[in-house]
Every structure is written in structure tokens, then in C-alpha cells.
């Protein structure tokens, strides 16, 4: 779980991200697989706020506080693209927004993999989605296995 310390916070990353967004007002795509500026798109569309941004060396994390109380984390590699998202909180996030162009794959795959109401595991060559939970407590993550930074520890994806 990301617990950002104040000295981890890289406001510069956030400022540059906003700057990028300002330079690219036409960007309206969602997050996974998209440039870092799409984080701001998500923030706007989800009527959310960025709670924290942290530089972890080989990747950056933006923690988005959704109005529902759920935290959505977006992981950005050094090449500037979102390679993973993770969520944790009382309600599901809008995955159409967070998964972007991968959402349709997710929906199609989910139909094939029904086990119970509380778990989801999708393993595709270009998309992994894992989720669990129950009413009042949902968590999960989606990532692009071919886009993970070298040496990335999946345990950091919470």
C-alpha cells in the first residue's frame, strides 16, 4: 500500500503533469495505457482530487481521492505512460474511465471467468485484472504486463 511520506511527495511531478495537461487540452482519453496527462482527465471526469503523488524511482504514483471515499492509484512508468491502476475503498471506481481502451476487453473477459461475486481474475497477454471484496470494501488492480517497468514488484501494486 502506498503510504506517501512528505519527503516522498514530488510536487514537481504533479506540476509538470498539470502543465502537460494544460498544453494538451484536447486529451480526453482515460488512464491505463495512456500518457500521464490522462491522470488529470480522470481527476476531472471522476470529480476527484489528487491526494498525493510520489516518485518511486522507476515509476510514479498518483493517488486520486474519489468522492465516494475510494482511492484510485495510477502508476506511471518513466516513459510517461500509465501501466497500472489500483483501487481500494467502499465503492467500485468507474473502471471505464480508469481502464480506458482496455475496458471493453475487461468486460468481455469477465463474462468468461465468473466464479463467485467476490473475486475476479483476468489473465490476458496484454491485460491482467485482479479484484476482490464485498459490499463496503472493494479492492483490485489492473495492469499491462508488457508495460511494467523493469524489476517492478507487483506487491507495490496496491
Amino acid at each position, binding site marked *: 500500500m502506498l503510504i506517501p511520506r512528505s519527503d516522498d511527495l514530488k510536487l514537481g511531478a504533479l506540476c509538470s503533469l498539470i502543465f502537460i495537461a494544460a498544453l494538451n487540452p484536447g486529451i480526453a482519453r482515460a488512464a491505463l495505457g495512456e500518457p500521464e496527462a490522462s491522470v488529470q482527465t480522470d481527476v476531472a471526469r471522476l470529480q476527484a482530487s489528487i491526494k498525493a503523488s510520489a516518485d518511486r524511482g522507476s515509476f510514479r504514483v498518483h493517488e486520486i481521492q474519489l468522492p*465516494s471515499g475510494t482511492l484510485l492509484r495510477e502508476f506511471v512508468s518513466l516513459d510517461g505512460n500509465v501501466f497500472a491502476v489500483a483501487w481500494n475503498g467502499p465503492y467500485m471506481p468507474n*473502471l471505464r474511465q480508469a481502464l480506458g481502451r482496455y475496458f471493453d476487453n475487461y468486460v468481455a473477459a469477465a463474462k468468461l471467468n465468473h466464479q463467485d461475486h*467476490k473475486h475476479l481474475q483476468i489473465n490476458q497477454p496484454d491485460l491482467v485484472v485482479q479484484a476482490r471484496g464485498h459490499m463496503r470494501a472493494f479492492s483490485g488492480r489492473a495492469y499491462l504486463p508488457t508495460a511494467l517497468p523493469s524489476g517492478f514488484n507487483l506487491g507495490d501494486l496496491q
Partner: protein
Amino acid sequence: MPASMRALRAGLGLILCLSALSCGGGGANLGPPAPPSPTGNNVVSVIVDAGPLPTTNATVNTLYTSVTVCFPGNATNCQTIDHIEVDTGSYGLRILAPVMNATLNLPVQLASSGNSLVQCTQFVIGYSWGPVVAADVKIGGETASSVPIQAIGDPRFTTVPADCSGTGTAQDTVASFGANGILGVGPFALDCPTCETQVIPGTYYSCTSTTCTGTTVPAASQVANLVTKFAKDNNGTIIQLPSVANAGATTVTGTLTFGIDTQTNNASGTQTVLTVDGNAELIMMFNGATLSQSFIDSGSNGIYVNDSALVACTAMNLTEFYCPANTLTLPVTIQGQNGVMTNNLTFLVGNAQTMLSNPAAANFSAFPLLAGTNPNAQSFDFGLAFFYSRRVATAIEGAVTSAGTGPYVAF
């Protein structure tokens, strides 16, 4: 069970068990022998079987009961519906609209706007969309009069708002849902307490014939835990299931008793009482780690926890399950918010591939040793296997029993 898993079973059916023992025919389960099944007007039978569509969509480790729903105030316009999943991980009664007779015609409830109140129920695997309707509900000898329930997949409401469909895949058919409905009997009263004062995307909507808008919903209009609406025996539930052989069983029958300490058949006795947090979660300590987002859930079909020492299955569609060479007995400690901890608690993990491909088990639906990984490193999800060979009480928030004050889980 998805068709893929059935195909897997068929495909692996050639792997023969070498002996009855290796098929796991014997073997005790966890815990002491369960006491005799209770009887009474507050008791209803429950069963683990292959579900409402056993040939095409067989389920595993899913607990069902039957409910009778009637048009409010009309005791002759009723229907009894079987294969309603019993779920201690959700709140409220939800029934797939297609299984309800047209003559039932339960009245759609209204949002504060005066338009129809329609719910988007969030499950991990997707959402269930449908109107809130009123019904008189009878389960065993208990009755809840004119209570809000959800009719999932109602053909009168087919336009799903984007922020509802954005939460995942539609779970609005018996096949996709794995049940004719779901009875959420968790340790809280409301399915969306925040919705009383805040519009939460992907929850409740006020709908006209063409458009839907997110809405707040007062507690009385929410699809709440039905138990709290009973005239008596309304402070919790007790699920009691017998032990199940390690290899599994075709069916398992047990009881769902309403009320705790309200009758002689639901007295608390002495047990471990674990208070749950505001998210209905507990702390579980496993392999030296303290997992703070853990829960006991009759609606989970396996035991889901990460253990790097356990070998994952290699068969397609089983890769999230464990396939150890031998059945393992593993220790776990569960701690409540009240500081109470379990003593000497263990669980068993078997080889999922062996279990599910055992030709002698082709019709099995109960697998007490089925375990798999958990995508949340802070979570241990103790599913229906926990309930086998146990008497598990779930006290609803605020319930005062001789064993403690809810919300708690006790066993």
C-alpha cells in the same frame, strides 16, 4: 462454475484416482462436530448444490435457500423462489426479474423525485441493475412486510447509466449471476449508508422512462438487510453446516436460523466473538503477516489468501487456485476489533485441479479445501469453507446479545 471449468473437468477426467483414499473420500474437516440442527419457525433449510443451472452453469461452494415473495398486502399473490444465495458479505434481498412470475408484478418504488428508484448493485465481478420494488417476504416462519427488494434485470429498465455500467460487467441473468437471487445477511443493516446523504456514482438512481440521475436514498427506501425488517428474530443470523469430506460432496444441507438469543434454538452459548470493523472486516494473522482487510464470507466460494509457499495450479482458468502436491493444514489467527483472538485455528488447502477433475466428483459442488490467491496483499477471504462443520453467528450492528454487541461474527 463457468463452462470453461466444466470443460476442464471433462478434459482432465482421464486423470484417474489411484485409490479411494487419494480421492479424498475420508477425512475430517475443521473444528469439533457440529451440534444437532436446530428446528423451529425461525429456521430455514439451506443447501450447497450446483445452483439453478447445474448442467450449463454449475456453481461451487455456493449456499442457497428459498424465499417466498408476495405482492404487498396480498397473501394469495405469492411465489416461492429457490436457489437464492445466502451471502454474509452483502445486505438485502435481490431477485432476478426473469424468475419472477409476471402476475407477481411487484410495485416499483419511487425516489424522492417521484421517479422510479433503480439500483446499481456493485459486486466485484460486475454490477446488477434493476428497480427497487416492494414485497412481503417470507423466509421460513419469518415475515417482512412491504420491504424494498431489488428486481435485477427488469425489462422495463434497460438503459443503464454510464457510471453504473462503468463498474464492470452486467450480472443480470441467472447464468451470469449464478443464482436466482441473493439474500444479503451481513452484519450491517444498510447496503449503502453513505447514500442517505450523498449521491454515490454507481449506486442508486432516479429514473424516468428515458434517463436516470444519481440520487440519495433514505434508509427506509434502501434495499436493506431483510433480517432487520422481521417482526422478531431480527438481530442476526446463524448459519450451521455439517462437516464435508476433504474431497468434497455433491450437496451439503444445513440451516439458517434467524435471531440470536431470541429463542431457545438460537442461544449464544460459549463461542469466540469477533467484532467486525465498519467495513465488516477482521484482522487475520497468517504466515507472520497481519492482514487488516480480512473477512469471513458465506458468499465467497474459496479460501483466498496469498501464500508464496503454495504452488499455483497450471490448468487454464485455475491459475488463481492452489495445487499443492499434498493436502496442507495451515494455521491462521483471526482477531476482532474487540481484541479477541481465535485459538489453534487451522484450515486445509487441497489440490484444486485434483478436486475439480476427479471423475468421481463430477457432480460435486462442495469443496472445503478449495483455496486460491488474493489480489489484495492485506486480505484473507475466508469463504464458505469456513462455515463447514461450524455454527457461525452474524450479529447485526447494534444487536445486543448475551455474547456481545454487534456487529460481530461468532463461532
